[in-house]
């Protein structure tokens, strides 16, 4: 029982990270119709920047927001330099552009930082907390709490602010939104900036537990995708639920089946969802599967 509980705890911890990545996807996809294959790189930028700053003696409470800011700037640059110039490019081109951007960023991070695996101490120390026979790292609470805060913030932002409503209007119909005076360009900039910041924050929170290095972005992005698809593309609740489910499936696979194939669990889930229920668990039946 304690064993199962332990797996569940670690599943929810990594699941919260995938949920944050999935929320980032959802945000960009909703506003621009682009599936951003570079989403995982934001997580890595957050983690590596924080590691470098903390390593240089900057206190974690200052390093964390700076790392999130670095992610945010990268998100804006990605949109300005790669996505916007492409204009109304066909889907195939957009896929290749965002993958190209992700590989470029991976190379850049290898140059700016290094090829080592990085981590730093958790924000509230390293002493595990006992919990019904299982143990939980204080950093896990930061991760889970952070994801919930991000989710709540997004829900409030999208529902109750002018900018958030602008993003939603842009998402549902870009032309109509522009016609009623919404600055759709700003909305798209904002959605890239926000989703990069969320990704970077996930990286900052997760690195003490999951470690990070320049090349883990693809794997993180893929699990974020799996979560998005499992939950239903375009749905924020779906992203949250999908992320937690993928995390749990992964942790249980590692615990009971094979730790070698824990990463495979996400792909099997992706393939199964695509075959059986392409709209995902929470997604409405789509009229168009692009």
């Amino acid at each position: 029982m304690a064993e199962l509980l332990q797996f569940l705890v670690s599943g929810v911890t990594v699941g919260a990270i995938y949920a944050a990545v999935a929320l980032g996807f959802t945000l960009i996809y909703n506003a621009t119709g682009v599936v951003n294959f570079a989403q995982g790189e934001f997580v890595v930028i957050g983690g590596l920047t924080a590691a470098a700053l903390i390593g240089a003696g900057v206190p974690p409470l200052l390093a964390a927001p700076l790392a999130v800011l670095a992610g945010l700037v990268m998100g804006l640059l990605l949109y300005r330099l790669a996505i916007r110039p492409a204009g109304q490019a066909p889907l195939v081109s957009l896929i290749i552009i965002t993958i190209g951007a992700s590989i470029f960023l991976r190379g850049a991070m290898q140059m700016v930082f290094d090829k080592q695996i990085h981590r730093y101490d958790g924000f509230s120390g390293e002493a595990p907390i006992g919990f019904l026979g299982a143990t939980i790292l204080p950093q896990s609470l930061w991760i889970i709490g952070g994801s919930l805060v991000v989710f709540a913030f997004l829900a409030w932002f999208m529902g109750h602010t002018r900018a958030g409503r602008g993003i939603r209007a842009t998402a549902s119909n870009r032309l109509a939104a522009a016609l009623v005076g919404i600055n759709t360009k700003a909305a798209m900039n904002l959605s890239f900036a926000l989703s990069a910041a969320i990704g970077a924050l996930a990286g900052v929170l997760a690195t003490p537990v999951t470690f990070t290095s320049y090349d883990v972005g693809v794997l993180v992005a893929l699990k974020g995708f799996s979560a998005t698809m499992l939950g239903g593309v375009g749905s924020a609740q779906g992203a949250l639920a999908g992320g937690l489910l993928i995390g749990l499936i992964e942790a249980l696979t590692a615990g009971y089946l094979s730790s070698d194939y824990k990463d495979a669990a996400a792909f099997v889930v992706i393939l199964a969802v695509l075959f059986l229920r392409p709209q995902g668990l929470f997604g409405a039946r789509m009229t168009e599967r692009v």
Partner: protein
Amino acid sequence: MTLGPGTRTFLVFAALVVLGALVFPSSFFYRVGTLVWINTLAVTGMVVLLGYVGLVSLGHAGFFAIGAYATALLPQYGVPSGLAMLAGAAGAALLAALIGRPILRLSGYYLAIATLGLGMLIWMVLSKEAWLTGGPDGMTVTGFSARSLLKSVGITLKTAEAWYWLCGAAATLGAVLAVNLGQSSAGRALRAIHDSDVAAASLGVDVARAKSAAFVISAVYAAVAGALLALANGYITPDAGGFMHSVELVTMAVLGGAASVYGALVGALILTALPQVLTVFAEYEHMVLGAIMVGTMIAMRRGLVPALAGLLARRRAARHAGRLARRVS
């Protein structure tokens, strides 16, 4: 006399293979040349899938690896390597056919992600099942030597040269087959799907079957290329089936221009030769590769070959117009 596109492709490719052999000063160049032809072969498969039908696969290195590992593994159980190569191609074809139907109902992003997942699964099995594949360290490949193969038909060459000719011949054959396919009625059906699934279906094309066929064909191209690489290198690692290799194959296709086999050749040539020529490339490899992908898609969406061909055609048209204008005035 006008030449058919298949014949023209044969002449162009054969001339380039011969030209390479004439100018190469050392066996190092033959090695690089061999890699270029192997990549050209694999990318020709991408041309069929991406260029003809318009489907992106981000897992094609998985099929490449199936061909490579079949050629590496089966000879250990007494299967001759020629047969092992065929088995690898058949295995890749079978997997592509089995997974093709359900996967290819998806399009765009969904297809890209599904193929990515498939490629990752293959890569994962290859790196985790160390008892069979040697794990991440890879395994040595023993098989027929190209040199003794050519000797049996009376041609004596150094090993590197023998592989160059063999892979050059394979790439030429692959290109001619792909061009002929493109010109056939089946090929026209594939191109019709590129523009619109619905329009193609209304013209009587069995869209699902045609997509599945293109997927299988491109998988076979990748598997044969993988088998050739395994034999030519005598060594294979799971990276041959990794995500980065899949991305490289797609990049080669879009850089040269995915619509034609000449694009495959140009893309494979640039991205294979560049790292060999520029020693600093290794450090910046990812950045350069990424920048090429983004830049190509923004500046010349159809790739180098069509962009240059368009430029030449425009210049010729302008010159022609100028001549006409002078004649009129």
